[in-house]
């Protein structure tokens, strides 16, 4: 029972919280950038698949299968270590010896964005399909082109339908940023690990780590719930 007696949360908190605060900033930054990218990628994939252009649909499905069939960690590592090499090879056709490098944060957020974009595309696609056909027809009858009707009438409604699901994906992404540790992004997990191994305050450090994630995700869950209620009023 010595362990419990020796617990020193005060010290761990005092030492860790500036670090954790900084790391929370990194996590939020990666989530914001990654999710914005995921929304763009997801919408484009959804529209591509709805367009009924056979080869495009096929290409997108292959892409989706690749993303869904490989672990996010592998995608992160691939984006950080492999993609810059491949891009450099391509660019070197024109500019010899040119080297492309991503910093870990950029590579990580982009990989998160692509991965989540693939999953969100299905959410977005099914919400677009679930918007009543009459909405598109009413807009067309008023003189909208298909594209105008899609962007200004159908997609805003699909967005409302998808919003609660988006909220859940954002919270998942916050948690998945812990995987950025694999490509050396100095986020929450890595900082905590470093501290825990220096001080042996293992229980304290990792408990604070868990709390830090809760501090991030609980308010988000609450915001999602409020928005959900607000938007449900006029659908």
């Amino acid at each position, binding site marked *: 029972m010595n362990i419990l007696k020796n617990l020193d949360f005060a010290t761990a908190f005092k030492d860790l919280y500036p670090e954790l605060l900084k790391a929370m900033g990194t996590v939020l930054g990666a989530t914001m950038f990654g999710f914005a990218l995921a929304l763009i990628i997801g919408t484009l994939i959804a529209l591509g698949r709805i367009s009924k252009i056979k080869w495009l649909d096929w290409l997108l499905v292959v892409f989706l299968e690749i993303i869904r069939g490989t672990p996010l960690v592998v995608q992160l590592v691939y984006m950080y270590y492999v993609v810059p090499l491949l891009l450099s090879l391509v660019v070197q056709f024109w500019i010899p010896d040119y080297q492309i490098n991503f910093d870990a944060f950029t590579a990580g957020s982009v990989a998160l964005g692509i991965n989540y974009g693939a999953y969100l595309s299905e959410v977005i696609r099914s919400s677009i399909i679930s918007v*009543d056909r*009459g*909405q598109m*027809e*009413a*807009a*067309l*009858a*008023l*003189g*909208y*082109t*298909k594209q*105008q009707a899609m962007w*200004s*009438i159908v997609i*805003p*409604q699909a967005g*409302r339908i998808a919003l609660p699901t988006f909220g859940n994906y954002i919270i998942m992404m916050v948690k998945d940023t812990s995987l950025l540790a694999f490509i050396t992004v100095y986020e929450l997990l890595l900082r905590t690990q470093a501290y825990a191994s220096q001080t042996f305050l293992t229980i304290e450090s990792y408990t604070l780590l868990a709390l830090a994630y809760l501090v991030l995700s609980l308010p988000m869950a609450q915001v999602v719930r409020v928005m959900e209620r607000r938007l449900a*009023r*006029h*659908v």
Partner: protein
Amino acid sequence: MSNAIIEVNQLRKSFGSNEILKGIDLEIKQGEKVVIIGPSGSGKSTFLRCLNCLEIPTNGTVKVHGDYFIKPGERFNEKHVAALRTEVGMVFQRFNLFPTMTAIENVMAAQIKIRKKSKEAARETAEIYLRKVGLAERMNHYPSQLSGGQQQRVAIARALAMEPKAMLFDEATSGLDPELIGEVLNVVRELAKEGMTMVLVTHEMNFAEEVGDRIIFMDGGVIVEEGPPKEFFHNPKHNRTREFLQKVEH
């Protein structure tokens, strides 16, 4: 050029191998009110939807104010079709209001996006038409806060605000509770009096007789009989027309 607002020439429409419209000719003059009746599945909606190119004819042409939706031998041109559609307002059985917009925003949206009006000008026009359909007090309500009859009147105002040359009504009252039908018919009646050119598909025979200049009976994808309402309802020439009228009257 004649004073026809809508001209339909040898219109045919198939879905797959199923031919729904089998060669329809029709000319609708400025200010004319044409009522289309016929049994369920006879192609009335399909025909109406061809009049604003929501359905693309398999054969034949539709002209609005002398302008083809799709010129013979040419391909569907979305920009042109969209522009010409603004000349033909359409009211649907299921209203199809935009649920995320208030009544007035519904009426303003296309004016701003398509007619490129300023917000202020669009609002002014929207207020005029919402007042006209008797909804001055409900402008800031969402569709979900309006009754079916009120929603349909907003939908009519939304179409009118584009100042179309003709209006199409596809069973505009069929989705309504009986006690709400009257308020919508009143609005349509008023429009008719003002000289709006319109094509109505309806099951309301009394209303058809009252506002129609010409009644068209469609069955099996063709026009079986047409004529002025008195003659059509009281002295129909074709057996199929007589049978249909007997069925709906009893």
